[in-house]
């Protein structure tokens, strides 16, 4: 079917509302809010609320969106209607039933306060919107009214009720001053006197007066905080700067904390407590209004730990690029294809698979193919599709940075103003924002585009991968090879245009490819249990799911801290940005590594959750910390305080129980429970939930320590983090001392124990026992004995034995990992270059093979021989080129790099050769190092592997030997071998070298080709076809060798090319894939070329 005969709606497309003239009548602040500069600071997290005025993003024209839908023809809309959500039941429609749903997304808008629910207030107010899904699969949008933004300041001493109202007026005045263009009736709604206590420092009194300042709109919190922090003059008391409390909490999170809602939990609103929306604002099936106090939040347990059947949309787009350039929405024509897959949470197959193409496309089995004549129709069809199937979660690969922004910018370039209505709010446009996101804790600085699709969670698998896994490459191809064990066909974007410009068949080819790209993210999502793990993480930490991907670690801890503090009537000061980021404290200890190759079992003693248990054992918390000044003043008895090795003082739990230890205890107890339940669980979905939960709990417990140490974080407290590490160091030392004292011959044991190495939370002990079993027994004994000397809950556990064990240096070791005495579990390596991305495959294979030989076969001479053979092969030019390819990402163009880099130079050179296939910014550039003129710079020696293959260019084996192989090899062999460097890198095997003659070099153009003897390479006349007279006698032997070579190549050729057929999923079509990430890509090319040559030589025998 084609959209060509679609009825088009008359009239020009409405212009995008570029000038939002129709703001809320009550007005708003100046767009340049005073806090703007803060945004630019490399803050750990962007913790700013951004008020969105309900009508600001709406389209200007007040047309019913039904008209927009009518744009499509009837066939199309009937096709869409098949996929609608299940229809509402009568009881739902009548509203006489309580509504229970799992919420996925919470945000807020500024709108007029609800007249019926809140008869006493008027004017603009923040309305929270909760989006979710019921058990039956109905979508819900709940508008929550009456929740007001607020924060605290400590009440100046001696402030009476009159002073408070004066303070109120003054503050109101200052607010009006700094928000002059705004004509909100009242900025500060109320100032209340409350009894609270600051979380910081141990205090003897139970509470003190605080002022709770309630403001009209969420952004006013920040603006008001600014005024108070800079200082305010109150009549009678003079100018005063205030420290604010809880003034940097996002409004939605504040709401969740106060209503006890955690991310992804179930919410119930009893019948009669809600009002059905009179004029529906959203595309959700159920739309309600209620007061925040009427929400019932269910803890995620039992029935409420399940997942609602969310709709997950996975999509991918293909777009045309101009020759040689990566597609850009403003210039590049077309969005050609959009593939969509919709899956219900819990199902293993998508229930919708379709692809929308520009121009005709042949059908695909099991896939709904929709073709359209213009790009406008494709875009609008997709919009309608999204709206009709109403996904709760949108996933894809790099959708946040590429696909979604591209679609939106493209629609803008085409002036399709009505396109970006993808969210759940009627007529509300999607907003695109550039954000810079940096997190010191984990992820480094990243630039990204934020596309806000209201009411739908976006889950970009690329972001999730980058966040959760350290991989050598994050291309969809290599990620799926890693996790799914599949290679993905990769079509170069220059071919994409050709396919699109071909016929219906070639476009079908492209569509299949596009579908696969939409399918793989879904499979990754399933395989890695992302939905379960992330929902559980949201539930455990209490933040909305969307925060987990878009924000850093510390908000998760902050959310838990705030919840706990609220229970304890504590408030958290806003001391953000206190540090310069420069302060450091002594980190974890690493015992000196006694490097070597240990052929006796090494028992490993590990501290179970070391840092959390230290915090619990010593009651380390913000509220138990005693400042040096207080310590003198309060004169606390010595038995009720702990002085940490780093010199800080904390009170013991008898005086004041810390809330961090309490959070940790709960997390660990919950984890224990989850693990116990996991053992009992039968249902696979329940198992998935519980496993996700225990993982989330573990990660959360471990991130608490990091939160206190993040100097530019939300609430840094170096006293705590440095105390934790100092205790950690002490414990490692203590363990070492005890082990070496107790397990000695004089102590009644057979041998003296020796600690060979210790890291952050583990100690490696050689008890000297020759068998794994004996080492395990002693390991257990030691763990139990030493645990007894620690304060609970610090526990030393015996977990595993390494045997044999190769200790290379600090943080670098390898060994076989045994947990039971009869067989080992796996080979375990740390810090050894097997995954570093700028190493070629040869190094990785070599290191792996050597470790395998040394550890598993215990064959050191074999490993040495293997290294020598490999080096010899390298020097003799017998190594498969694909093993030598080094890949680097091209992040900027050549001019932007300060130092010349090999891959950048190569990209430039390739652009000169052929601009169409040269790598662009964002691509990964594969290259090999070739032999070049003496004195050539390293960056001049890079070359495109294909070019090398085609032209027989010699590679530079010395480079590989010295810059790639030597370091990792010496690291491994130095503890084992004397003179490792001499033996391995300069032995007799390095004497013979073979270098191929390039076929395109200058001199070869003048050379005349003549037949040479196949046996001895002597030049022969044309009369003798194959061999010179001297070699004639060895005819059979030489033939055998050649035919064996051909035979081997033929076998390789067959295996490589059929593998590629397999990956592309078709036998009857030629392989197009040019995935340079695929390990066999170059090999396949080379096999083809070698085969042709070998065949030609062999043919010389058939005279």
């Amino acid at each position, binding site marked *: 079917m084609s959209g060509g005969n679609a009825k088009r709606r008359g009239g020009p497309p409405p212009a995008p509302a570029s000038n939002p003239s129709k703001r809320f009548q009550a007005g708003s602040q100046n767009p340049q809010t005073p806090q703007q500069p803060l945004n630019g600071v490399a803050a750990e997290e962007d913790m700013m609320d951004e008020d969105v005025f309900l009508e600001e993003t709406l389209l200007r024209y007040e047309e019913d969106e039904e008209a927009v839908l009518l744009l499509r023809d009837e066939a199309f809309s009937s096709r869409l209607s098949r996929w609608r959500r299940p229809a509402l039941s009568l009881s739902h429609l009548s509203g006489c039933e309580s509504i229970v749903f799992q919420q996925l997304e919470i945000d807020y808008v500024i709108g007029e306060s609800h007249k019926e629910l809140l008869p006493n207030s008027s004017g603009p107010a923040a309305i929270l919107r909760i989006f979710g899904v019921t058990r039956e699969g109905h979508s819900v949008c709940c508008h929550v009214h009456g929740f007001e933004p607020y924060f605290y300041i400590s009440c100046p001493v001696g402030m009476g009720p009159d002073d408070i109202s004066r303070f109120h007026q003054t503050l109101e005045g200052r607010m009006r001053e700094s928000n002059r263009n705004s004509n909100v009736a009242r900025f500060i709604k109320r100032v209340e006197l409350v009894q609270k206590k600051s979380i910081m420092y141990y205090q003897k009194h139970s509470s003190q007066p605080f002022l709770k300042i309630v403001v009209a709109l969420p952004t006013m919190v920040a603006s008001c905080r600014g005024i108070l922090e800079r200082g305010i003059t109150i009549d009678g008391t003079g100018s005063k700067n205030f420290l604010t409390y809880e003034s940097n909490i996002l409004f939605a999170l504040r709401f969740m904390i106060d209503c006890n809602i955690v991310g992804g939990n179930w919410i119930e609103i009893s019948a009669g407590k809600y009002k059905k929306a009179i004029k529906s604002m959203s595309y959700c099936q159920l739309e309600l209004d209620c007061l925040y106090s009427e929400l019932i939040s269910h803890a995620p347990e039992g029935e409420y730990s399940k997942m609602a059947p969310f709709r997950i949309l996975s999509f991918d787009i293909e777009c045309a690029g101009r020759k040689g350039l990566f597609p850009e929405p403003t210039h590049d024509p077309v969005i050609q294809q959009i593939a969509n897959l919709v899956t219900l949470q819990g199902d293993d*197959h998508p229930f919708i*698979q379709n692809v929308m193409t520009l121009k005709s496309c*042949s*059908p*695909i*089995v*099991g*896939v709904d193919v929709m073709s359209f004549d213009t790009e406008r129709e494709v875009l609008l069809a997709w919009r309608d599709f999204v709206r009709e199937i109403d996904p709760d979660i949108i996933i894809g690969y790099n959708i946040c940075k590429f696909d979604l922004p591209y679609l939106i910018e493209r629609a803008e370039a085409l002036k399709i103003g009505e396109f970006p209505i993808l969210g759940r709010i009627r007529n509300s446009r999607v907003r695109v924002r550039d954000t810079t996101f940096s997190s010191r804790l984990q992820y480094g600085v990243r630039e990204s585009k934020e596309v806000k699709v209201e009411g739908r969670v976006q889950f970009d698998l690329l972001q999730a991968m980058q966040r959760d896994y350290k991989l050598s490459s994050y291309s969809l191809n290599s990620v799926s*090879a*890693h996790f799914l*064990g599949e*290679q993905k066909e990769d079509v170069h974007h220059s071919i994409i245009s050709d396919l699109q410009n071909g016929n219906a068949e070639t476009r*079908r080819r492209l569509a299949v490819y596009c579908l696969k790209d939409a399918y793989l993210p879904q499979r990754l999502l399933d395989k890695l249990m992302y939905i379960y793990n992330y929902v559980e993480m949201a539930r455990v930490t209490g933040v909305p799911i969307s925060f987990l991907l878009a924000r850093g670690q510390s908000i998760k801890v902050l959310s838990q801290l705030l919840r706990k503090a609220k229970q304890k009537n504590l408030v958290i000061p806003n001391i953000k940005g206190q540090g310069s980021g420069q302060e450091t404290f002594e980190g974890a200890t690493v015992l000196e590594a006694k490097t070597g190759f240990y052929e006796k079992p090494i028992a490993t003693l590990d501290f179970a959750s070391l840092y959390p248990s230290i915090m619990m054992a010593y009651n380390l918390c913000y509220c138990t910390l005693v400042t040096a000044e207080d310590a003198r003043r309060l004169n606390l008895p010595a038995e009720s305080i702990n002085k940490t090795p780093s010199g800080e003082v904390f009170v013991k739990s008898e005086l004041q129980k810390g809330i961090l230890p309490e959070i940790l205890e709960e997390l660990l107890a919950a984890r224990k429970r989850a693990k116990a339940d996991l053992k009992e669980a039968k249902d696979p979905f329940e198992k998935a939930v519980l496993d996700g939960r225990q993982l989330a709990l573990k990660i959360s417990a471990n991130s608490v320590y990091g939160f206190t140490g993040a100097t530019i974080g939300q609430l840094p407290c170096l006293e705590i983090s440095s105390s934790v590490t100092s205790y950690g160091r002490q414990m490692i030392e203590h363990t070492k001392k005890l082990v070496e004292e107790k397990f000695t011959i004089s102590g009644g044991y057979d041998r003296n124990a020796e600690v060979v190495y210790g890291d952050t939370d583990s100690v490696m002990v050689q008890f000297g026992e020759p068998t794994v079993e004996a080492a395990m027994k002693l390991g257990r004994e030691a763990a139990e004995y030493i645990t007894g000397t620690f304060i609970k809950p610090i526990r030393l556990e015996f977990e595993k034995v390494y045997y044999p064990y190769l200790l290379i240096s600090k943080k670098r070791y390898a060994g076989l990992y045994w947990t039971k005495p009869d067989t*080992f579990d*796996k*080979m375990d390596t740390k810090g050894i270059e097997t995954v570093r991305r700028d190493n070629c*495959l040869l190094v990785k294979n070599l290191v*792996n*093979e050597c470790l395998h030989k040394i550890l*598993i076969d215990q064959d050191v001479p074999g490993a040495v021989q293997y290294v020598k053979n490999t080096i010899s092969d390298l020097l003799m030019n*017998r190594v498969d080129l694909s093993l030598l390819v080094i890949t680097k990402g091209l992040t900027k163009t050549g001019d932007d790099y300060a130092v010349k880099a090999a891959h950048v130079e190569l990209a430039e050179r390739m652009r000169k050769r052929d601009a169409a296939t040269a790598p662009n910014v964002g691509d990964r550039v594969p290259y090999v190092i070739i032999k070049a003129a003496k004195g050539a710079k390293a960056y001049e020696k890079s070359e495109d592997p294909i070019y090398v293959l085609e032209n027989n260019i010699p590679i530079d084996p010395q480079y590989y030997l010295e810059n790639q192989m030597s370091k990792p090899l010496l690291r491994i062999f130095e503890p084992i071998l004397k003179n490792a460097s001499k033996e391995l890198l300069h032995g007799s095997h390095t004497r013979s070298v073979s270098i191929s003659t390039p076929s395109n070099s200058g001199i070869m153009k003048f050379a005349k080709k003549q037949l040479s003897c196949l046996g001895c390479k002597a030049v022969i006349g044309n009369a003798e076809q194959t061999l010179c007279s001297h070699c004639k006698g060895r*005819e*059979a*032997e030489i*033939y*055998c*060798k050649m*035919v*064996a*070579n*051909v*035979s*081997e190549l*033929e*076998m390789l*050729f*067959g*295996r*490589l*090319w*059929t*593998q590629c*057929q*397999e990956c592309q*999923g*078709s*036998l*009857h*079509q030629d*392989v197009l894939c040019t995935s340079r990430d695929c*390990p*066999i890509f170059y090999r396949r090319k080379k096999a*083809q070329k070698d*085969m*042709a040559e070998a*065949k*030609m030589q*062999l043919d010389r*025998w*058939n005279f």
Partner: protein
Amino acid sequence: MKVDVEMGGGSPKLLERKQAVYRNLDERYEIHCETYKGQQYSHIYFTRLHYMRNLLYSLVPKWKPNLPVNTVLGLEEEKECIIVGTIYKHMKLKPSILDEYSKERSKVPLVKPHNFVHPDDHLILEDESGRVKLAGSLLDPSAFVTGIVVALHGKETSEGKFFVLDMLEAGLPPQIEQPPSSTEDKYVVFVSGLSIGSSTFNPLQFQLLVDHITGHLGDENEQTFASQIVHFIIAGNSVQILQGLLNGQTIAPRDQSTLTEPIKELDILLNQLAAAMPVDIMPGPSDPANFSLPQQPLNRCLFPGASAYNTFISCTNPHQFELDDIQFLGTSGQNIDDLFKYSEAKNKLEFMERTLRWRHLVPTAPNTLGCYPFTDKDPFLIESCPHVYFVGNQDKYETTLLRGSDNQSVRLICIPKFCETGVAVMLNLRNLECHSLSFSTGLNV
């Protein structure tokens, strides 16, 4: 050729070796000027599908006259139809070259199972327009392999699968009528897997065979019998060359002889045979020949002695010929061995029968068995049914007479490996009956 027989003092009786008219039909398997120019394997599948589809379409009206014929693309949900396409078997255990790269080295070295069939395997039907997963219990995936072309009757399910209700294979190809059986016995001898140069090769055993059939052994009866042998066929794996010697490195002079020693030995034996009767030698996987099918003839330079005789014929694998108008077709065993790895049957003869019914000698090429990337033909299609179909290098001697629905009758022979069993196979051209010749050098026999 005459055999002089000296009988203990008696008058010498002159036995004359019988002859048969031989015609070599290997031409279709020969690769002359074709080279690797970047062609891929899709062409083979394409030509195969094209040929087989025409054939199957011609059979469909008889099979299911009332059903529409469709392509994979044109399938409509719940509508019964017939589609013709190439089977693709998705196999869980199928080894992949990518495993060398992507999988972490496991602690146990990968044990190669002899058979990669797994209960989770499933079939997919593909034509130029697309592929569709097959559902239903009619087809047992373990009996099929990738690369065969069949017609299926069924309908598309709501999940986008094709539910198979019935299947049609091409069946045995038509056969040229067998020549009227003559009255005289003429024998063809088959051997395979001599493996000269391997540890299991026993020189005496083969010499016994040679002496026996050339008439140098036995009494008059046996010699008379020997004189009735008209052709000798060696179906692959005549020599075994130590792989270590062929790793591309320069061979030390003392190893040069070890490399060619088995070939020289073979040449001597062939010399004796060729002096007595026509000998066809086919290359096999362990011979000094190319790897992918069709394997090209062993180069004559390997056999300076035997190649002097015009009775010495170095032929291709697969090998096709005619003796006294009887059609022979055979391979050195790779096709059946590969089927054995990727599918299941009760014995090797059943595999052989299947290849005939599928009308394809090597259905698994190129998927799992190497083959030359032909662009314009698929030489392995069996267009006419042979009278004798043999495969070499099998574990044991098996034979049967297969009868087709159109009165075809085919003698199927599995030739065992001689070096392991000491068995050669004799076929009587008169009635296509078969028996084994067993040689043993053990003292107890």
